[in-house]
């Protein structure tokens, strides 16, 4: 049975979101996607992830637990 014909599995809107995530996000092992136009490589620049520092994180988690 087609995945898209299983409406009980997932809502249509959620399905669009899911497909969007699967195509645009997630780990890649083979490197950044490189688009070539007329032999000039246009390197896709990945988004930078902003992270709470581990120290801040630990402190905040302790505060929340306490």
């Amino acid at each position, binding site marked *: 049975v*087609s*995945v*898209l014909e299983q409406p009980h*599995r*997932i809502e249509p809107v*959620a*399905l669009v*979101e*899911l*497909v969007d*995530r*699967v*195509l*645009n*996000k*997630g*780990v*890649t*092992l*083979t490197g950044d996607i490189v688009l070539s136009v007329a032999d000039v490589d246009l390197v896709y620049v*990945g*988004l*930078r*992830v*902003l*992270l*709470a520092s581990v120290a801040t*994180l630990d402190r*905040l988690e302790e*505060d*929340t637990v306490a």
Partner: protein
Amino acid sequence: VIHVYAFTVGSPRLPQTLGLDGADLDTVCFEELAAVVSRHDAPSTTDAREAAAAHGLVVESLSESTDAVLPVRYGETFADEAALLDALATNAPRLRRGLELVDGCVEIGVRVQSAARPAVATTGTDYLRARFDEVSQSARLAEQLAPIVRAWLVSPGGEAAFLVRSDRATSVLAAVDAFAGTHPEVAVTSTGPWAPYSFGGEAA
């Protein structure tokens, strides 16, 4: 051809969900890392959108029963197991960091759209001002949520992704709703919880 869905650690209990083209799921292991895969003899004949949805459903089902899951972008395929193992060995440190980061977490997506953003931008300045508002409101939301999230990311488009402990997903969604209530100048849409697609170990 081997199609890769996600990475995890140890021996994950594979979901009942079938992979692309109805293929069974399997794991390929490198040290403690496990790649969840399906094997295919012939190129897929499935419609691309349907294949992407099947890929996503495998990842979501896996993350429901497994603590640390790093989703792989659709389209990662390897000629054979040797090629996959080679890529695993090369990327092992990054995958380990990513798996440690997402352990026990889900992702909440938030889209912020300026109410002032015209359907068709009249001038470049108007368009950029609306975009700027969206990004700054996303950043403001991220600051507010910082105490209850593990990590976050704001894309140049004003879309934010929050990595949150599974048991805090509901409170984070409630906090996003509260933010939306106090900021009528922007339309705020939240989605999830999802498997943590945006936190793939590229983190600085």
